């Protein structure tokens, strides 16, 4: 039951997930994406969200969900517990995005991340000419009531992945439900990335974060 209004971000994520996979959705909201993944890809679905109304909506859809703060981590899950971990428009709302994305790449074989591009031209225009923090269709919040606590562009996210040694396997850039192929950091409102472990990433991440390497042989 795909939603009637076209949503290319939603549909892209549906398309990128393999049939029958196990999926963990971090910041699953009302569960619309997970429910579609169950219906069209027969995935084993699990969601996490901090908002109790999201939990009520997910349960009404028959989904299994945890009412939990993502910033507390995913410690109970062993390495590669899920085929996919999804962060759809939730990374920029986390207090500890680095920690959570490291955790996501640990427990998931692949990670799908979508972000709003704060360097989109409409946002640049508002900052440059109006001298105001942008309020656009994909960034619809005033500064005082925005759930977004980190501001990043597509280039920022690429740098971040290189720094953290997350390998970007695939990416897609969108503006008003159309794919953007030229100068995405200027023209795209939304970006979707498929990430995976890069070689030795677990060891490198452990060195960066100072945590214990759980299974050094597997990744080394």
């Amino acid at each position, binding site marked *: 039951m795909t939603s009637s209004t076209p949503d290319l971000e939603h549909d892209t994520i549906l398309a990128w997930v393999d049939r029958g996979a196990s999926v963990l959705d971090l910041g699953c909201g009302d569960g619309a994406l997970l429910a579609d993944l169950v219906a069209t890809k027969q995935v084993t679905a699990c969601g996490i969200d901090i908002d*109790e109304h999201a*939990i*009520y909506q997910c*349960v009404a859809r028959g*989904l299994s*969900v*945890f009412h939990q703060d993502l910033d507390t981590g995913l410690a*109970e*899950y062993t390495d590669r*517990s899920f085929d996919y971990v999804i962060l759809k428009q939730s990374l920029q709302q986390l207090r500890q995005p680095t920690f959570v994305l490291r955790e996501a790449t640990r427990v998931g074989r692949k990670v799908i991340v979508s972000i709003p591009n704060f360097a989109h031209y409409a946002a640049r225009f508002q900052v440059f000419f109006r001298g105001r923090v942008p309020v656009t269709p994909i960034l619809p919040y005033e500064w005082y009531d925005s759930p977004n606590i980190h501001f990043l562009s597509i280039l920022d996210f690429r740098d971040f992945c290189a720094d953290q040694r997350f390998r970007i396997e695939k990416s897609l850039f969108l503006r008003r439900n159309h794919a953007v192929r030229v100068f995405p950091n200027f023209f795209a409102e939304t970006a979707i990335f498929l990430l995976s472990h890069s070689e030795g990433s677990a060891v490198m991440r452990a060195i960066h974060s100072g945590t214990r390497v759980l299974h050094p042989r597997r990744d080394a």
Partner: protein
Amino acid sequence: MADSDLSVGVVETQYFTFAEPPNEFPLESGDRLGPITLAYESYGALNAQRSNAVLVLHALSGDGHAAGYHVGEERPGWWDAMIGPGKALDTETYFVLCSNVIGGCKGSTGPSSVNPTTGRPYGLAFPHVTIRDMVTAQERLITHLGIDRLLTVIGGSMGGMQVLQWMVAHPHRIRSAIPIATALHHSPQQIAFHEVGRQAIFADPNWRHGDYYGQDPPARGLAVARMVGHITYMSDVSMAEKFGRRVKADQPPFHFGPHFEVEGYLRYRGDHFVQRFDANSYLYITKAIDAFNLLADTRLQDVFKPLRAKILVIAFKSDWLYPAYQSQEIVRACKLAHVDATYCEIPSTYGHDAFLLEVDEETHLITHFLRTVAHNREA
């Protein structure tokens, strides 16, 4: 108006007796107990496949009368808001069972029952019973009723401990489980509050080492125990909302009468409780709760290992007696064992009592959860 339409109506308690000597029931303590009677009630009808049975498990002071009305009584069963036509446990769809625990005093065998070897009430000669014993006895009941697998087991507080015990001891006989406002084991703070209640009973001269049947019962001691209990079941906010610092006009402040409304309330609840509950049962059941420990000889990651049932864990934000972190530990154990679980922390100001009072949120979660479980044939 609509209340009577939504009620299961007039109900009657039924009795199941088993473990007749010499086949007494082996208790966890090593003692044997028999015969054992369980008082239980059922609402709705068991379907032809016997696949729609729901077992409701009661808390410390509850009983088998969970819904509907006994003849001549005005108050319905203790979870009437959740059980009935169109309610969370919909009796049009489900066959709902609730039994009084062993050790109880509402029709099941407990310390106030007659000891067949002496012809007098057991008193302290009653053996120690545990949450595991309560659940093993319930399992005998559902076997007796011809039910192989329960659609779900559900309960709050001590009822939730029984749910957890079902998940551990009889994983293949449940398709789902709903532990509410409960814990894998009691914290020292929880044990401490129970101990204050027990000490109040011990300190009552009428208690006579449990041998008070046929005489004045230790009503003061049990009332104080219940007052302590009620404080722990409410929250700072719910007490402030319910009583404030309001005073009773007819009570002068310095005569130690129930001057504040909260004092009057606690006295009323305490005095009311002694009319319907046995002090020795209170001692035995609080001890069973304190002794319960699913992590006694198992690690957290192994406790739910063989479980394939679907789990719904519910906690309440203002519950300081069974804080949400205890429910989160249950959830962690489920995740570690790859058990299909859902967790919701309902924002409530009612404290521990919320599991009896937050009907709308619980109804939403449980209705949809059970629909999913019933729909999922493989579960």
